[in-house]
């Protein structure tokens, strides 16, 4: 190495030392972001905790005792744990293997598979649950009728109004989360290590198990936790499938606390231990993953080659197709049929054909147009603001810019465990009183969605940053860029696909949000999910079907537009 080169390195090192020693000019931005996040999370959380602890007599644990000695409430907790555990397992198994098949093998029709996974992701779980009541209700369900017609039996194949039915449906709409996490990771892992294994004589299976799987393990674990927590906080699906059979989960139980006279204190006492449990889960995840570095993307991209499935190509494809039929084809087929039927349970012939459902939803029922407008307005607003905030926060925690930055990740992830309905009440308490009155407008929903979607945006952004080594930014900072500039010019472009994904995740999360909306909406700020739930409680099957199909079509159009505008199709790979 020449003397000049050594000198350059020496100067650069000095600059780094200097940079660390002097104050970072962008510090106020980071501090501001951190404060905003803390404000967003702490306000409702604090009111939640205080509501659970304080009554007229002062601080008391009475509410906790009342909640945790009641057999019915304990049963609801147990149901929730069982359901969420199995949802997590099934979602990781289905989502993980599908992600691997799509990204690393020569599975046929991959773009199509990706698009359909996206479709199941877009489908609100409560809509899926509703469709499955039409498919697998024990007596009138289409699949059970088919089963009876084929076998001549008078029983049923599958009763969706059970704990198993609930797990099944919730897993169908949780696996896309895992899929997307694993797919991202699989796309980032270069084939170098796999090649090395193959050169040393390992079989395909062995390579997959010893190289690909361990590399994907953090994402798998993360996927399990996300699916677990996602299912924990779902309200619509358990309300639609569990309640008819007398099965309560934590969210539906909390929902009943809000009946008049409301017991917000019990609801809060019910939620706080949940919060603690999730903190523990996330801490555990950190501990497991924290010891290893997972920088798999350097400045130079490695090559990725596809595994040839050979004879397994067809069975693998059938498996993937099977999962997608359960989450997409069957539900939307029955919704489509119901949308055009006078009576959904009767075969669709000319006598049963009607366009009245469309007429009713689009022209007669006045809530719909306003609700559709509100929903998409909130979707775009929240996704944009949320992606920006999540990116900045993930950057802070990942590059450890502020002291105590790792606590920020707790704040960003905490909403995951607050069931939307509890968050809604906390926000209700906070934002219906001066100094900040948001109730009665769409802005309280905006705050709720921003808070609620922060974890998904954050974990998406974080896992993206985690796989981008800071060396590239360091280089940029050495030549004089500040942190914000290097984030904008170097890291963000590398992370672009991850951040676009974050935008879509948040957008979809918003348009299918139900559990917080159901308490926070007002006549002027009704959203589509609330309208669907209203219709569901009254059993207006045709109208729900019309709205559900409409929701799918429009969200898909939005996502395609975003990806087209971003110059890259989500359905495509990174090529």
């Amino acid at each position, binding site marked *: 190495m020449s003397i000049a080169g050594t000198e350059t390195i020496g100067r650069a090192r000095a600059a780094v030392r200097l940079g660390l020693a002097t104050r970072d000019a962008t510090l106020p931005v980071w501090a501001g972001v951190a404060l905003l996040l803390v404000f967003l999370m702490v306000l409702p959380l604090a009111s939640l905790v205080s509501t659970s602890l304080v009554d007229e007599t002062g601080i008391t644990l009475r509410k906790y005792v009342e909640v945790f000695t009641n057999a*019915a409430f304990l049963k609801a907790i147990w149901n929730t744990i069982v359901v969420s555990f199995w949802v997590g397992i099934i979602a990781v198994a289905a989502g993980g293997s599908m992600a691997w098949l799509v990204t690393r093998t020569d599975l046929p029709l991959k773009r199509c598979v990706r698009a359909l996974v996206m479709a199941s992701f877009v489908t609100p779980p409560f809509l899926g649950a509703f469709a499955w009541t039409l498919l697998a*209700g*024990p*007596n*009138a*369900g289409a699949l059970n009728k088919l089963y009876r017609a084929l076998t001549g039996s008078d029983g049923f194949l599958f009763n969706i*109004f059970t704990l198993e039915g609930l797990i099944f449906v919730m897993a169908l709409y949780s696996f896309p989360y895992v899929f997307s996490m694993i797919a991202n990771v699989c796309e980032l892992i270069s084939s170098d290590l796999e090649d090395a294994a193959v050169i040393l004589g390992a079989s395909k299976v062995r390579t997959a198990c010893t190289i690909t799987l361990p590399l994907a393990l953090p994402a798998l674990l993360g996927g399990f936790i996300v699916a677990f927590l996602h299912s924990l906080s779902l309200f619509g699906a358990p309300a639609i499938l*569990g*309640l*008819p*059979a*007398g*099965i*309560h989960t934590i969210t*539906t139980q909390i929902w*009943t606390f*809000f*009946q*008049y*006279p*409301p017991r917000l204190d019990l609801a809060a006492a019910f939620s706080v231990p949940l919060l603690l449990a999730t903190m523990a889960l996330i801490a555990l995840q950190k501990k497991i993953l924290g010891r290893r570095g997972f920088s798999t993307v350097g400045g130079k991209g490695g090559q990725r080659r596809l595994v040839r499935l050979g004879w397994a190509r067809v069975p693998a494809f059938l498996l993937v197709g099977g999962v997608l039929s359960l989450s997409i084809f069957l539900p939307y087929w029955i919704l489509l049929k119901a949308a055009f039927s*006078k*009576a*959904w*349970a009767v075969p669709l012939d000319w006598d049963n054909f009607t366009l009245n459902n469309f007429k*009713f939803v689009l022209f*007669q*029922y*006045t*809530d719909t147009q306003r609700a559709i407008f509100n929903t998409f307005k909130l979707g775009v607003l929240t996704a944009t603001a949320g992606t920006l905030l999540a990116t900045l926060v993930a950057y802070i925690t990942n590059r450890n810019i502020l002291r105590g930055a790792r606590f920020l990740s707790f704040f960003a992830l905490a909403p995951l465990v607050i069931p939307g309905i509890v968050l809604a009440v906390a926000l*209700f308490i906070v934002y*219906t*009183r001066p100094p900040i009155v948001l*109730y*009665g407008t769409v802005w309280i929903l905006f705050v709720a969605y921003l808070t609620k979607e922060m974890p998904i945006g954050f974990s998406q952004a974080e896992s993206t940053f985690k796989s981008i080594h800071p060396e590239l930014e360091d280089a940029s900072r050495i030549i004089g860029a500040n942190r914000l500039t290097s984030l904008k010019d170097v890291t963000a472009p590398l992370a672009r696909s991850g951040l676009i994904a974050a935008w879509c995740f948040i957008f979809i999360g918003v348009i299918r949000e139900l559990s917080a909306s159901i*308490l926070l909406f*007002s*006549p002027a700020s009704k959203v589509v999910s609330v309208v669907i739930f*209203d*219709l569901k*409680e*009254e*059993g*207006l*099957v045709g*109208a729900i079907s019309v709205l559900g199909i409409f929701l799918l079509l429009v969200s898909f159009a939005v996502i395609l537009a975003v990806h087209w505008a971003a110059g890259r199709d989500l359905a495509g790979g990174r090529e």
Partner: protein
Amino acid sequence: MMRLVAALAAVWCLGGVSVAFAQDAALVQAAKKEGKVVWYTSLAIPSSTAIAHAFRTKYPGVDVEVHRTGSQRVLQRVMQEAGAGIKNADIIHTSDAGHFVLLKEKGMLLKYTPRGVEPFPSGFKDKDGYYFGMRATLSVIAHNPKVVPEKDAPKTWKDLLNSKWKGRMVSAHPGYSGIIMTHVLALVNLYGWDYFRDLAKNSLHLVQSANDPAGVVASGERPIGVNGAEYFYYKTLKQGNPIKIVYPAEGVPLVVSPVAVAKDAPHPNAAKLFMEFIFARESQQLLADREGLYTGHPAVTYPPDKPKLKDLKLLNADPDELEKRNAEIKKRFTQFFGA
């Protein structure tokens, strides 16, 4: 002399009419200035949508914002908003008469007596003039005649306890529906809580709204409804669905659904106009003809295929008792049925 009296009477009548006319015109004008009326209602979505449409047609320039959910949810929302100091609802309408006892007691209702309610039966009127029964329905048994032949079908409330119906029945929920709240109270008064304890042994399918069982029965998902709004069963039947309504001889719960103006109504004139509209004979007749409801209006006629209320043994609910036992009913029902 007689002619003079007649002439005077005619003048007096005309005068009265024109005074009423002027009042109406002033009210319509004031309502138009307010622009809309916000209606919190538990009336089925298709029915409340139809009423709102009729109102808009009659009074162009005054919009109706329909906010429909179950009775108990309407109350929950009204109370939540009151607690937060939010004034949003103009008209409150649920099927749980107990709610109006509570709201009146809390001073949350505006005393307003629409014209034409004097001849209504006493069960349709608050003695202090705060709320009036806008419509009434029955809670009945229904079955799907394609699945359960009529000769086997349950005819009485007690028939429903037979274990041969296990897993084949649907019930709506008193924690959501005011109709079912009224229904449960009536049957508890008739048979005691043992009735519901025994009924729960038949593994019922639980839905929320009193309107939902109609669809569940029609589709055959559960061929027997152990309760539910008669008007909605009737409407579903009229749409060509396989439904047979049974009016048990032991007595049928009569559910009168009151309506009132909120004390803090942000659009008080539009609200009053809406009250006038809803109790006008033509609107009441519309409820009977199009929505299959009963009303308190003595001049209203009913479709010939609906039973006359006087031919049925009715179980009337006392609003005060409904109010007092609301929490108990929700609690016991949930204990027996699990959710």
